[in-house]
């Protein structure tokens, strides 16, 4: 993300009867309660929607809400509030805001904060706190939430005086969205919410934050990078989440096209480079296709663009891309040489760095390397399950493939965590940034439903689909009620395999099929939806998939489809954790897949 910009929206609460904040800059100071200052500052920062849940320690804030033009979405669990703010932020690129009360309300936010922290999502979370006079006395619903959340927030504040609220909130927004974005928590004592202070939005503006002093793009490093790129015979671009955070889609595409460099994406990078582009290889890492990981292993230059060499994409580090020089373009200096030692580090905003780099690079037309990669695909594409004739079984891959076809690849897909998440990444071809919303770093089950609510509210004109497993869906299924209350037009596909599927798969491969605690009983999801007044259907046949998806799209309002898919299906290919990228478990061949062919671990050398 670029350096924080001033919000476009003005500070004054609009259309508010009272309190009247000054209408002219000359009289910009007003006396307000702390609670009013909070809302006025949020409005000033451009916020018109928040996700929250009330309680004793935050009641003054809720009491003041009616005076401000802010839509409050009442959630069913505070974890949901943070995931909604997160989905809102991921879909829109703006800062998401969540609110909760002290104690249990605040601790319920922790998983949401950690999810946002690991995926660098800009959030401002507000918690109520007991009065400053009793802080530290184990008062009713007192929890040291700034202490609890220290490792899972980018920064946090404990605010005890009303005059400190506006500066804290404004600084929180700046911190949340500048540099490498992240969640910021503001803990507001009840007395600070109730007391009165002067409010002046402009005067509360945060001082410009210092740049991280180790962020630097040395001119000779740029020259060196250009030299490496010019000389590379087998280069690969590794496109990560930073591509969209920085808004560097154009620059990455120009780099790839000008020098005919293939692009592999991380899970969070999907969509940053169009999936159907001829230079797009697809997803790398644990469940990446064999040719993607082979290309990385055989490359002589990796250009890492806004990604952090997560263990899920590198596999075993000692054998990772051993022949490749590495250029790391990254905004966070602490990521440099953390997992993978690089030859050139360009530490800065991706789009800006590429703007400096591109003028030094001239076009290349022919690339034997691309032909080599295409040849290495071999029969892998043919083995693809979507090419399997209808054999009476419903596979999750079919559901997702059909969903992609029917929605023309244009929906915002919000996934949960598990097998269905990987199938989504493999079979839904994302053409644009922010069209896939998924918890990558933390892998938080229960993320999808609430995050999709946030995404739909951020982008009301977009088609939004939840893809969740039967396990993860039940973790936050209570938010169905929020969808009903807000009458949100979003669609839900539950990929119901009767198992905690990803756990079952690991048990099958690595624990001798000891399915300990992975079979899971579920309610009838369509009936559960109906209990909320939400239309639903249950699908068992492949031929019914497209009609059901079309029906859901036609209906204005929420719709849930319970897809009862093959129970013991696995995600292929798979690199066992800790193995090298080329030591993969391949997809069984089409002819034996339906016979329950036992996958064997084969290495690239075995072919």
């Amino acid at each position, binding site marked *: 993300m670029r350096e924080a910009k001033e919000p476009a929206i003005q500070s004054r609460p609009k259309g508010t009867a009272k309190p009247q904040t000054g209408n002219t800059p000359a009289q910009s100071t007003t006396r307000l309660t702390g609670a009013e200052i909070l809302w006025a500052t949020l409005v000033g920062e451009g916020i018109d929607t928040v996700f929250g849940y009330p309680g004793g320690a935050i009641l003054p804030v809720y009491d003041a809400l009616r005076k401000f033009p802010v839509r409050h979405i009442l959630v069913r669990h505070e974890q949901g509030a943070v995931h909604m703010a997160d989905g809102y932020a991921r879909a829109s690129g703006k800062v998401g805001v969540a609110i909760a009360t002290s104690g249990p309300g605040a601790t319920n936010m922790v998983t949401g904060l950690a999810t946002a922290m690991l995926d660098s999502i800009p959030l401002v979370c507000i918690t109520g706190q007991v009065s400053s006079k009793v802080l530290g006395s184990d008062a009713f619903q007192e929890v040291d939430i*700034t202490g609890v959340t*220290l490792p899972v927030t980018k920064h946090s504040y404990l605010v005890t005086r009303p005059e400190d609220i506006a500066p804290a909130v404004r600084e929180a927004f700046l911190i949340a969205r500048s540099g490498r974005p992240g969640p910021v928590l503001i803990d507001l004592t009840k007395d600070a919410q109730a007391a009165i202070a002067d409010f002046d939005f402009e005067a509360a503006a945060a001082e410009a*934050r210092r740049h*991280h*002093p*180790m962020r630097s793009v040395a001119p000779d490093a740029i020259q060196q990078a250009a030299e490496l790129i010019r000389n590379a015979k087998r280069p690969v671009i590794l496109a990560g989440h930073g591509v969209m955070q920085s808004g560097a889609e154009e620059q990455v595409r120009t780099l790839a096209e000008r020098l005919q460099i293939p692009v592999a994406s991380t899970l969070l990078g999907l969509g940053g480079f169009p999936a159907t582009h001829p230079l797009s290889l697809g997803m790398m890492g644990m469940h990446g296709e064999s040719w993607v990981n082979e290309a990385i292993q055989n490359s002589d230059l990796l250009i890492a663009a806004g990604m952090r060499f997560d263990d899920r994409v590198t596999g075993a580090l000692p054998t990772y891309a051993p022949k490749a020089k590495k250029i790391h373009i990254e905004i*966070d200096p602490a990521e440099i040489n953390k997992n993978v030692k690089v030859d050139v580090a360009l530490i800065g905003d991706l789009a800006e760095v590429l703007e400096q780099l591109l003028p030094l690079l001239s076009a290349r037309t022919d690339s034997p390397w691309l032909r080599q990669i295409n040849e290495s695909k071999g029969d892998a594409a043919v083995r693809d399950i979507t090419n399997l004739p209808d054999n009476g079984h419903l596979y999750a891959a079919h559901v997702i493939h059909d969903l992609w076809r029917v929605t023309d690849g244009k929906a915002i897909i919000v996934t949960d965590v598990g097998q269905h998440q990987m199938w989504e990444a493999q079979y839904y071809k994302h053409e644009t940034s922010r069209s896939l919303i998924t918890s990558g770093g933390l892998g938080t089950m229960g993320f999808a439903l609430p995050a999709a609510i946030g995404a739909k509210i951020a982008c009301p004109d977009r088609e939004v689909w939840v893809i969740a497993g039967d396990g993860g869906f039940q973790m936050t299924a209570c938010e169905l009620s929020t969808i009903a209350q807000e009458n949100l037009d979003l669609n839900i596909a539950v990929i119901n395999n009767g198992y905690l599927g990803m756990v079952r798969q690991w048990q099958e491969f690595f624990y001798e099929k000891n399915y300990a605690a992975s079979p899971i009983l579920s309610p009838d999801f369509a009936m559960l939806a109906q209990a909320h007044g939400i239309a639903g259907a249950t699908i068992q046949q492949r031929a019914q998939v497209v009609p059901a998806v079309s029906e859901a799209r036609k209906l204005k309002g929420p719709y849930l489809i319970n897809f009862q898919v093959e129970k013991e299906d696995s995600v292929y290919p798979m690199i066992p954790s800790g193995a090298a990228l080329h030591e993969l478990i391949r997809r069984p061949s089409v002819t034996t897949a339906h016979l329950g062919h036992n996958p064997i671990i084969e290495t690239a050398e075995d072919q």
Partner: protein
Amino acid sequence: MLHTFVALVEDKPGVLTRVASLFRRLNINIVSVTVGGTERTGVSRMTIVADASPTAGHRIMASLYKLENVLEVDDVGQLSCVTRELALIKVAATVQTRSHIFELVEVFRARIVDLAPESLMIEMTGVESKIEGLIQVLTESGDEILEVSRTGRMVMRRGQHTSRVLQAMRVPGYESSGSSQSEDAALEPDAVHTQPAD
């Protein structure tokens, strides 16, 4: 290996926790940390000595800078600095057994700051090895050490140097603690170079 960082931080509640929490998260042991005032109001100075792999310095520094309350960080490991530690040492001693301790204190340029019938207290400032030297000599001469309180290392770079000068002042092959000590021995007027001959 021991790394020494100087961090200038905002003087606000919770800042020490944030810094300490960072080291904990990285699973790095803090050997010592000193915090106190600076020439600027509202700014505290921390000297952190941490035991981490030789290559960890960059990441620790980069991570420290990510904390919003941290204003400036210096990895002084390789640089020429003055290093000091303050120690208070309480030794069991009676009127009859005191006198040899007085002599030791004299040789080490330490001071006696409290005298009680059964004990005395020594105050001493210097590089770590000097303090350890005094403790060792006291132990070897059979004195019972009752209490020791050490502040941990404080460092300050010498002079106002351009990077070229600093480079020139680096003692090749020396590690952080070693280099500053040898500098001290060479340049510091009041240095006690060695433990007294036994």
